[in-house]
């Protein structure tokens, strides 16, 4: 295990393990409690596989009442809880704690209601992202956010991470597509927010829950908005002699008032890895490749495709290929979608980073990355959600070579610092988790982080839900609540008040 320290396990809790297992077994009878090491192995890590930890015990409730009683029990007994969906987090959001109950929500796997008229679907949190689309595609509908892991990842996990995908710029993130939630607080209280109607009544708790990385509450039911599938979709492949030209083309497309359904960029190493793997017909000589997808009514797609061809030519595009069939469109995407496994073929291991930058800074960041690649002695391939500025550098390393994981992590940290330096952020869609926890100070001041943690105090004042994630330093709520009041004089007396 590498350098990220988790909170020290409580000896008192570890000593009470048998008692805790017994109490949970009472709440969830039958096979819903797992305490054998061999069986708990399946839960020791998530998508960030460099980190592993066996939990205290695993519990798989099936009803909201069971979730409520489990949390209530843990609250009363000061036992930590790590909620888990499908376990696909790339930032270690579901990494277990040695003294914590791992709460798996995967038995909550039912689609509860499909309401086409109100374009809303009510599901349990363990339903997969793609499972929602599968449930409604017969009627021509789909659920818009589409993270790459959509076959496996759960909608509950999507809420925790505010997942995105390749269609975010046009269709929004999870937070823009969720209408309502039922959730359980650490105290066991069950709360319902939103529903099939719009806007929140009172403070926007949906906004706080979405992207809260399992630190605020456990989601037990989700209402999402579904959309009618676009009438048609076509993609165009555009190869450029430099990433600058490609970046300029992206800016010009947006400047022309066009918001494509998807707009992805790959650099040369990524193009080659993908092409060697799936033979999508990508131009190997290109320094940068753009895949632009337009969706909507046919008349609009045709109109915009011709505009985009003009813009691409004006930006020195060397190859332009428009998909002429659904198969061809899927082939164009196959390379991009397989970019991660393709890189996995050319390197024993890779780290996937996830910064977001202002688009105009792309050439600078790519140049910076080349320099960092030399500094750390590791290769990097880049895929980039060009529409929204979300960059996924894939750092290639070999975990079997001593020191390479550490070098890769240091390289990754340098890339993220660079993203923040140019006005971007640490994570666009993968979450902070443990992976970027200790970099939060690069982006936020101590006061910024304290105000964030005060939100945690409103939901979970004992810090029992998923502690050790997101925040580099844990402050007790009593300490965060303290306020220094200075008796003052009337402020800025030198200016007019009326």
């Amino acid at each position, binding site marked *: 295990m590498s350098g990220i320290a988790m909170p020290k396990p409580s000896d008192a809790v570890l000593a009470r393990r048998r008692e805790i297992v017994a109490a949970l077994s009472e709440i969830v009878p039958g096979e819903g409690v797992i305490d054998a090491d061999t069986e708990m192995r399946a839960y020791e890590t998530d998508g960030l596989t460099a980190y592993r930890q066996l939990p205290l015990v695993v519990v798989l409730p099936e009803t909201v009442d069971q979730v409520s009683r489990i949390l209530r029990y843990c609250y009363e007994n000061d036992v930590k809880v790590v909620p888990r969906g499908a376990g696909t987090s790339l930032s270690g959001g579901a990494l277990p704690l040695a003294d914590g109950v791992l709460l798996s929500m995967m038995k909550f796997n039912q689609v509860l209601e499909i309401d086409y*008229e*109100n374009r809303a679907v009510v599901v349990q949190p363990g339903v997969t992202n793609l499972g929602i689309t599968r449930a409604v595609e017969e009627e021509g509908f789909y659920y818009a956010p589409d993270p790459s892991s959509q076959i496996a990842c759960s909608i509950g996990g999507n809420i925790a991470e505010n997942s995105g995908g390749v269609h*975010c710029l046009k269709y929004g993130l999870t937070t823009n597509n969720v209408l309502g939630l039922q959730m359980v607080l650490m105290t066991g209280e069950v709360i319902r927010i939103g529903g099939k109607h719009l806007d929140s009544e009172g*403070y926007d708790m949906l906004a706080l829950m979405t992207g809260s990385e399992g630190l605020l509450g456990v989601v037990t039911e989700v209402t999402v908005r579904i959309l009618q599938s676009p009438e048609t979709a076509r993609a165009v492949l555009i190869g450029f002699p430099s990433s600058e030209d490609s970046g300029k083309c992206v800016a010009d497309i947006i400047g022309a008032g066009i918001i494509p359904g998807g707009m992805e960029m790959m650099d040369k190493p990524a193009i080659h890895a993908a092409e060697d793997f799936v033979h999508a017909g990508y131009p190997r000589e290109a320094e940068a490749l753009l895949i632009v997808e337009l969706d909507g009514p046919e008349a609009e797609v045709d109109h915009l495709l011709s505009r985009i061809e003009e813009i691409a030519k004006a930006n020195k595009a060397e190859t332009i290929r428009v998909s002429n069939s659904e198969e061809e469109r899927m082939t164009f995407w196959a390379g991009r979608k397989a970019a991660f496994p393709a890189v996995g073929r050319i390197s024993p291991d890779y780290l996937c980073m996830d910064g977001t930058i202002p688009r*105009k800074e792309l050439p600078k960041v790519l140049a910076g990355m080349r320099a960092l690649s030399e500094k750390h002695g590791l290769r990097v391939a880049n895929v980039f*959600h060009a529409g929204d500025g979300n960059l996924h550098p894939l750092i290639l390393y070999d975990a079997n070579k001593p020191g390479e994981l550490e070098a890769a992590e240091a390289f990754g940290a340098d890339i993220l610092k660079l993203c923040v330096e140019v006005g971007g952020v640490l994570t*666009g869609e993968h979450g902070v988790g443990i992976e970027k926890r200790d970099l939060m100070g690069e982006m936020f001041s101590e006061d910024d982080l304290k105000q964030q943690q*005060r939100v945690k105090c409103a939901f979970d004042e004992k810090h029992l839900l998923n502690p050790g994630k997101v925040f580099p330093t844990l402050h007790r709520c009593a300490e965060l609540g303290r306020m220094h009041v200075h008796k003052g004089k009337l402020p*800025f007396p030198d200016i007019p008040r009326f």
Partner: protein
Amino acid sequence: MGETLKPRDEKDLVEAVRWAISEDHPLEVIGQGSKRDLGRPVQAGHVLDLSAISGVETYEPAELVLTVRAGTPIAEVERLVEEHGQELAFEPMDYGPLLGREPGLGTIGGVVGANLSGPKRLKHGAARDHILGLQAVSGRGEVFKAGGKVVKNVTGYDLPRALCGSWGTLALATSVTFKVLPRAQTEATVLLPGLSDAEAVRSMTRAMGSSAEVSAAAHLPREAAEKIGVDGFDGTKDATLLRLEGFGPSVDYRFDALRKLFGDAIAAERLEADVSRALWRAVRDCLPFAGDDAPVWRVSLAPTAGPAFVADLSRVLAFEAFYDWSGGLVWLRLKDGDPQAEALREGVKRAGGGHATLVRASHAVRTSVPVFEPQPKPLAGLSRRLKQQFDPSGILNPGRMASGL
């Protein structure tokens, strides 16, 4: 009423909030005061006027990102982005006319505080769906920033979004970053005349469930249509409106698609761009109910629940109503002075749930009737704890949303 404090910058603002904390003097927070009469009346010793913390910090059209100080007038921001062929796609409503003030007022801070939106809420969301980041001063007198200046960001809790709709009770934004979008090249509105409320919502539901990409859908029963006052729009019949925006060829194509969808049974008419824009602005600002002081409710429910809710309520109350958001937003004006809060909220529950806000009522009524939907106990407790974490002394707009918030 005591002093009006008008900080010039963030530093002044911190000083003012700290002073208010030390003196235990709650503050009523205003920008241009355009929504001052919306919400539960605030018991405050002083007024905190944020309108001087104004100006555009950065605007990069190619990045689709705009950062402005909170006191900047909305009108100024809209003019600026329009010059660059862009817009705030959430269409912030102007409450001025409805609340008896002049139109065109309001600041960006108010957009955030009230989580403003308009008819396009249906497709593009509200202010909360377009905010990317902010810097703010909490009720503890501390400056914090949250979010960022890029479209995709999950670094930390989403405080910027959560502060939308908090009516200045948690923290005061000083600078706000929004995502802006290209303004549609053109638009048109499909007008379906003479439909009953139920038929109208069925038609809007069909249109919204089609691939015609309708960006707004409203139904004005004749009584509301008559009062909307838009040149080029014939308000003598019930009017169901479907808005289409985009590139010219696309709008034409989708207009034909919708006409085919409804077939010969409904004679769809087409309203061209100028009339369409003016009409949707009037719907956005609730103009049919402007000009008097009868109580007005803004009710959000599941779109298909709208007509049944209205029909059910009309058996016990005298009011007029019109629909936005494909039936999911009901604007309702009572014909006598009593807002009938209990009957109305019972009606919302019977219709399957949602929430009702009393957006126009006298000071006395707003003091005694909950303006915002009362919350069930565990949620109310959570809201109070959240307030406590941002504003432990209850300095910022205390009681504006509910007692204790």
